[in-house]
């Protein structure tokens, strides 16, 4: 290329993702703080209030039992964080979360339906590895059918897809609510425990299935960070830069649906977590680049989950319902950030 001598190139001008020293420094400091907090809460959950003396055999037996909770949190944080960041990017919309696409409503219908048809035994009916795989498959199948139908047609429009997704979600939610009305109080009580997102819902026997799924789906989304950065610029710019927009969006939505299905089938609905985590990650990372957003959002997700769990367990002695503290504290933190910075 032959450019005329128009202004000289100044050394140090860089189009990199963290353009100035200040931004770079802030990012790495914030990330280190998050790693520190994650370790603090992680170790805290293992060791705090452990009746056996530190380092003894008994200590490790109890710590091992608790470690399964931490593994669940790592998986849920990874699923929610990666799926939400990617979903917001491919839909070019920073105020939504993939949960609205009917995953949670479907989960509610399946769980409620089981109790409705089989009574209290229905809850146990939907536990077990094959049932877990079936639930994930139904959720992924539904969303792939929806995306495939809505994105490949002549209307091929993400906004319409979102709208149809929300309507299907609301419809399924109403069916679940209707069935809940007809349950006996004792059946309803048993069901309620399943409908609140809780780490205790996770069964360790699901892990051999859940972990590879998360590694593949999450791995793909993280490895395509550079393409994600372009998809964020919108459909037309993406095509202009030589990327097959529809194919990339479909692939991403497929992997997003796997992540959302795994976390929902594992612990139940956590509607607000993904949105909170993605928004906080954008606030704290201060960059557009997914290579930096993903790790930040994952760490924030883990810190929020582990922190909420730690506080609920050791301060309020009510470890079952982390969802409540995530929504209360998380929501307030979110509002403070938005009001202080004045932008998403």
């Amino acid at each position, binding site marked *: 290329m032959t450019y005329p001598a128009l202004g000289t190139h100044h050394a140090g001008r860089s189009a990199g993702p963290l353009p100035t020293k200040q931004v770079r420094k802030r990012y790495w400091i914030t990330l280190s703080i998050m790693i520190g907090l994650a370790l603090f809460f992680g170790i805290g959950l293992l060791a705090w209030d452990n009746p056996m003396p530190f380092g003894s055999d008994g200590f490790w037996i109890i710590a091992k039992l608790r470690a399964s909770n931490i593994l669940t949190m790592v998986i849920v944080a990874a699923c929610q964080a990666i799926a939400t960041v990617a979903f917001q990017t491919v839909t070019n919309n920073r105020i939504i979360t993939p949960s609205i696409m009917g995953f949670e409503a479907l989960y509610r219908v399946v769980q409620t339906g089981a109790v409705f048809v089989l009574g209290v035994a229905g809850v146990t009916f939907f536990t077990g590895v094959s049932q877990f795989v079936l639930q994930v498959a139904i959720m992924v199948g539904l969303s792939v059918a929806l995306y495939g139908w809505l994105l490949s047609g002549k209307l091929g429009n993400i906004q319409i897809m979102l709208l149809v997704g929300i309507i299907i979600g609301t419809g399924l939610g109403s069916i679940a609510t209707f069935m809940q009305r007809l349950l006996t109080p004792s059946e309803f009580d048993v069901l309620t425990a399943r409908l609140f997102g809780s780490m205790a819902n996770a069964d360790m026997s699901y892990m051999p299935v859940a972990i590879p799924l998360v590694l593949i789906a999450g791995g793909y989304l993280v490895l395509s960070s550079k393409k994600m950065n372009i998809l964020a610029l919108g459909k037309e710019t993406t095509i202009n830069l030589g990327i097959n927009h529809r194919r990339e969006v479909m692939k991403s939505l497929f992997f997003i649906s796997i992540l959302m299905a795994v976390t929902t089938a594992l612990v139940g609905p956590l509607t607000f977590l993904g949105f909170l985590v993605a928004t906080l990650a954008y606030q704290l990372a201060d*960059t557009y680049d997914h290579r930096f957003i993903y790790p930040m959002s994952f760490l924030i997700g883990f810190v929020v989950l582990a922190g909420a769990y730690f506080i609920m367990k050791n301060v309020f002695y009510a470890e079952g319902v982390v969802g409540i503290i995530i929504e209360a504290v998380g929501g307030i933190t979110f509002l403070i950030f938005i009001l202080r910075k004045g932008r998403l």
Partner: protein
Amino acid sequence: MITLNSVSKQYSSTVSIGPVSLEIPTGGITALVGPNGAGKSTMLTMVGRLLGIDQGSIEVSGYDVSKTNSKDLAKIVSILRQENHFVTRLTVRQLVGFGRYPHSKGRLTQADEEIISRSIDFLDLGELEARYLDELSGGQRQRAYVAMVLAQDTDTVLLDEPLNNLDMKHSVVMMQHLQRAARELNRTIVIVLHDINFAGHYADYICAMKQGKVVHFGTPAQIMQDEILSEVFETPVNVVPGPNGPLAVYY
């Protein structure tokens, strides 16, 4: 060179584009003008493969746009639409850097950085390069996007109404930049313009469209005529000699 061979696109039984057959020569600025709904933007988006065609074929520099790999086309032709989704935490320089994606696949080399710097300087964005896109005015953002497609370093550049949102001064400056890019960087620039006088002054060729068809193609001197413009725009137009060439008066 851009060649359109009886290209047509059917929207509904009453709305259709074409058939259009046209050759846009290499080098210089070609302005697409015409009334609203004439199909200027549609034709531009079809050349830039943002929109598929129903019949016919389009070739840019000898490559059929519906058959060539999109990845390879991104090094041959770049297109900028009127409205662009922008990411808030993106600086001007980072945006311009995305223009290098077809060449660098996201791994910017020193050579890429130099091309980015030149594109930025070319559009006088040096002072603004560290600013975030949400801190810019509409016109500045428009210039940043133009810098991005220039950094893409394609022989053919398609711009859909780049003067939208720009005031008088910035419209003139933008057209001067584009004229320089066409002459000094030897680009073929196709641009949709609303103001016929901008086309008359800065374009090397004017393509007049009406109801989905090309009705006139020629140099500004050939197109800037009372009868032609009155017919194209369906309103009485008088072309009068101005200090810097002919001016269309239609107020």
